[in-house]
C-alpha cells in the first residue's frame, strides 16, 4: 500500500465483466456498495485481492477490477490466509456465502478468525443454496421445506455472528443488502479495522428464498424490528419505544422503554468483553424476529501475517541472513581429498 492515490473512482474497481446474477438478486446491491466505497480507502486496485468460494457469491471476484482468485468450495478463507500471510501489504477481501463459509468451509472460517488473519470476510447469507437450485443451508430456519427437505429440515441453523464471536474474531458485524447506507458504513468500519473482520450480510435470494429477511428489511416492519447497534449508545429501537435491557440473571431481553428503569438499558460497547456481543447475537434466533444489526464487537490483536513476518525478522536479526553453505555444512562433515 504505497502512495495511496487520490482520485480513484468506482470505475477503477469495476471490471469489464457483466454481472450475471438473477435479476433482482441482493448481490447486485452489495456489489454496487462495495465498488462505490472502495475509492474511499485510498488503496490502488493493484494492491487489493478479492478471494471467493463457490456459490452465487463466488462470482463477485470477477466483477472487481482488482487481483482476484475464485477458489473452490469453502476454501476461500484458506486461500486468502495464504495471500495475506505471504504478503501482508495486500488488502485482502473474502466473499463467501452461508453454505460456502458455514458448511463445507466451516473449518477454515473459524481458524482464519481465530488466527486474526488480516482479511475482510463478507458472508452473503441468503439462508439457501442458490447455485445448486434451492436446498436448505446451515442458516435456514428449522422446518424449512426445500427440494432436499420436502418434509422440512430437522437441523438447527447456525447463528453466524455467535459462531464468529466464538471463534475469537476481532471484528464482527451484521448488515442488510438493501440498506446501502448501513451496509457501506459497516464495510467502512470493517475496512478500517486493523485485523480480520467478519461481516454477515443478509442477502435476499429472490428466486429460491424470497422474503427471508422481510421482517427486518422491508417497510414498514423493518424499522420496528431492526435493533441498530451504535457503540457507546443505549440500545433503543422501534422508534424509541423498545430497548434491550438487562433482565434476570444478567440475561438480555427486549422490553418497552416505558416499562424499563433507564439504568437497566444496555449501553452498547464493542470493545469490552465478548459476553455482551454474545448476548446481543442471541437476542434473536434468526432474522424472522427482532434482531441486531451493526458492529457487535471490535478488539485489537496482532494480525497473523504480521506476527509470522516478525518471527522471520527476529530470526534474521539473531542469525543474519540465511547462509545456505553454512546450513549444509552444519554438523559433522569430513573431507575426501583428490588423492584419497
Amino acid at each position, binding site marked *: 500500500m504505497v502512495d495511496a492515490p487520490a482520485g480513484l473512482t468506482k470505475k477503477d474497481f469495476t471490471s469489464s465483466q457483466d454481472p450475471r446474477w438473477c435479476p433482482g438478486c441482493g448481490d447486485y446491491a452489495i456489489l454496487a456498495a462495495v465498488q462505490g466505497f472502495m475509492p474511499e480507502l485510498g488503496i490502488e486496485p493493484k494492491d487489493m485481492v478479492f478471494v471467493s468460494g463457490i456459490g452465487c457469491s463466488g462470482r463477485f471476484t470477477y466483477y472487481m*477490477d482488482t*487481483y482476484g*482468485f475464485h477458489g473452490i468450495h469453502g476454501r476461500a478463507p484458506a486461500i486468502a490466509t*495464504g495471500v495475506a500471510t*505471504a504478503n501482508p501489504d495486500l488488502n485482502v477481501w473474502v466473499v463467501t456465502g452461508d453454505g460456502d463459509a458455514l458448511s463445507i468451509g466451516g473449518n477454515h472460517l473459524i481458524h482464519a478468525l481465530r488466527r486474526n488473519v488480516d482479511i475482510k470476510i463478507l458472508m452473503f447469507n441468503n439462508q439457501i443454496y442458490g447455485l445448486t437450485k434451492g436446498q436448505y443451508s446451515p442458516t435456514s430456519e428449522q422446518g424449512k421445506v426445500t427440494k432436499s427437505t420436502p418434509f422440512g429440515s430437522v437441523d438447527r441453523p447456525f447463528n453466524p455472528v455467535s459462531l464468529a464471536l466464538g471463534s475469537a474474531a476481532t471484528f464482527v458485524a451484521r448488515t442488510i443488502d438493501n440498506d446501502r447506507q448501513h451496509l457501506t458504513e459497516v464495510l467502512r468500519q470493517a475496512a478500517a479495522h486493523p485485523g480480520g473482520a467478519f461481516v454477515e450480510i443478509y442477502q435476499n435470494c429472490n428466486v429460491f428464498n424470497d422474503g427471508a429477511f422481510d421482517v427486518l428489511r422491508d417497510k414498514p416492519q423493518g424499522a420496528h424490528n431492526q435493533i441498530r447497534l451504535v457503540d457507546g449508545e443505549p440500545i433503543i429501537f422501534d422508534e424509541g419505544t423498545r430497548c434491550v435491557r438487562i433482565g434476570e440473571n444478567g440475561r438480555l431481553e427486549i422490553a418497552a422503554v416505558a416499562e424499563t428503569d433507564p439504568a437497566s438499558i444496555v449501553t452498547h460497547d464493542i470493545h469490552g468483553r465478548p459476553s455482551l456481543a454474545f448476548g446481543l447475537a442471541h437476542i434473536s434466533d434468526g432474522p424472522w424476529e427482532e434482531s441486531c444489526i451493526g458492529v457487535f464487537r471490535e478488539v485489537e490483536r496482532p494480525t497473523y501475517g504480521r506476527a509470522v513476518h516478525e518471527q*522471520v525478522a527476529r*530470526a534474521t536479526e539473531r542469525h543474519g541472513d540465511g547462509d545456505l553453505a553454512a546450513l549444509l555444512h552444519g554438523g*559433522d562433515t569430513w573431507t575426501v581429498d583428490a588423492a584419497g
Partner: protein
Amino acid sequence: MSKAVKERERVVIRFAGDSGDGMQLTGDRFTNATAVLGNDLATLPDFPAEIRAPAGTVHGVSAFQIQFASTDIATPGDHADVLVAMNPAALKADLDTVVTGGTLLLNEDAFTARNLDKAGYAADPTADGSLEGYTVVKVPMTSITVRAVEDLGISKKEAERAKNMFALGLVSWMYGRPTQPTITWLEAKFGSKPEILDANVAAFNAGYAFGETTELFAHQVVVKAAPSAPGTYRNVAGAQALSWGLVAAAQRAGLQLFYASYPITPASDLLHELSKHKHFGVLTVQAEDEIAAANMALGAAFTGSLAVTGTSGPGLDLKAETIGLAVITELPLLVIDVQRAGPSTGMPTKTEQGDLLAAMFGRHGESPIPIVAPSSPGGCFDVAFEAARVAIRYRTPVIVLSDSFLQNSSEPWRLPDVEGLPTIDPGFATPMEGFEPYARDDRLARPWAIPGTPGLEHRIGGLERQEVTGDISYDGENHERMTHLRAAKVDGIAADIPPLEVTDPSGDADLLVLGWGSSRGSISAAAERFRVGGGAVATAHLHWLNPFPSNTGEVLRRYERVLVPEMNTGQLAMLVRARYLVDAITFSRVQGRPIWADELADAIEELSRG
C-alpha cells in the same frame, strides 16, 4: 591390552529396544560416528506407530538398522549381522531380521521372568536352546550402567535410562568407531544438565571399556573407509535434504519460501525442519487441516512465493481438489507426498510406493501434472530443487513422491557447491500494455502476474478459462483446446529433463530392471550381486514419472524383458505398459519395508534362467 583386529568389508547392525529406550538416538549416533570414519552407509529406522506402547511388549519395539562398508553400498542391508536387543521383546520382534550365525547382543538384565512373559516367551530363549546357530552374547547392560554412574548423584531411573549409551559405547568399541563425535554431541545436547551429561558420558565410556576388557569378544572388527569422490561430506536424512533443497531453490529464485502443512506421519519432519530456518525467509504455517494447507500454499503461490505443501497419502487424497485448482489456475505449487503404507491409515510408520497412480490420476477431470521422485536421501536435495525449477518455469503444480524409508533413512552426502547451483528466474510479469493472463510463452507457460503489480489486475479461478484472455468460458471447443494445452505443457517438460540412463556394464543384457523412487538402492545392489555371479542385467531408474524422459520408450524396447520392482502391486508397470505397450513384469513387495536386494537378485536370476 589391545585385542586382535579383524577386517570386514561390510557389517549390518540392528539396534532394537523399547520405544522409550532411545534406540533411534543410539542408531543415529552410531551412524554419525560411522559417517565421520568415512564408511559408506545406509540406515533404516523402523519404529512403531505407537508413541509408547506398553513397555516390554513386542508392539513397542523400535529398531534402527545400519549397514556400513568399505565399498559402495546402496541399502541398509537385508539382514543384520548383529542384533543389539535391549529386552526380550526386541529379540522376539527382530530375531528374524538376523542372518543365520549372526550375533545377538542381549541386555541380560532385561531377561527377567516378567519381561519374558510380557514379550510372550514361554521359556527363556537364551536357556532353552532356541537360539542355537546364533552367537549369543549376554551383557548385564543395565546393572553395569547403574554402577558406572552411581557416584554422579542421579536417580536410579535416570541411571537406567543411560543404558542405551552403554550399548552404543560397547558397539562403538566392537567396530572401532571414534568416540569423540558422540561425546561432543552429548555435550551439546546435555550442556545445561551437567549431571545427565556426566551420566551419559560415563555410561558410554563404560560400554567402550567393557568391550576392550571383557573376555566375551576375542577381537575388534574394523571396516575401512570407503573410497569416494573428492569433496566435503556429511551424513544426511531424506527429510533434511528435501527441506534444504526447497530452501536452496527459494534462495536461487530470490523468492520467499512458504510451506503450509498439517501434522502427519511421516511428513511432519519437513515442517519441523523448515520451521527452524526462518532466517532464510522461510514462512511455515501449521494449517487447520490438509485442505487448508494446500489452499494456503496456493494463495501464497498467487502472490509470488515459492509455495509448498507437504503431506503423506491420506493428506494427498484431501488435497486432490486443490491440486486440480492449481492445474487450471496454472500456478507453481509443490506438493510433497511422503508415501506410507495404505490404504486409509494403513501402516503410518511403514514405507510403500503406493501413491504413484494417485499422483498421476487422483483428481477429477483431465488434470495432468508433473511427478518426480527422489531415489536416495541425499538425492532429495536435488529433486526438491528440480521440482521447484520446473514448477516455476512451467507455472504448474508438481508432486514430489518421497516415501517413509527415504525420509528417515540417511547416507553420506557429498555437499553441493552452493555457488554452483543454477539460478531460477521467477520471470514475474511486468507492467505492460495489453496484458493477457492466459497468453503462453514458447513452453506454453502463462504469465505469473503477482498482486501489487500495477496494471496487471486479473482474476483467476477454477472455472475454465478462455484461451489467452483468461475470461470465463463455457465454450466446448475452447475447453478442448485448453485441455490439450495443459497436457502439452506438461508433456513438453520432457525436453527439459535428463534422458533415462541405463547401466549395462557388459552391454549384452536381455533383461532391464526399471525402477523408481527409493528402491534404487535395492535394485542396484541386486543387479550388482547378479553381475558378480557372472550374469548380465541392465538397470535404469526413473526420477521423472510424468512426463517420462523422452528416450524411455526407446530404452524399454531395447530389451527383451523388463522387470519393474516396486513397493506396490505394479503401478509403474501399469503406466509403462499403457504408454509403451511393453510387457513389463512386476516384482511386488508391500510389506512396509524396502525391497531386499537378495530377494530381488533371486528374481533376476530366475528370470534370466527362464
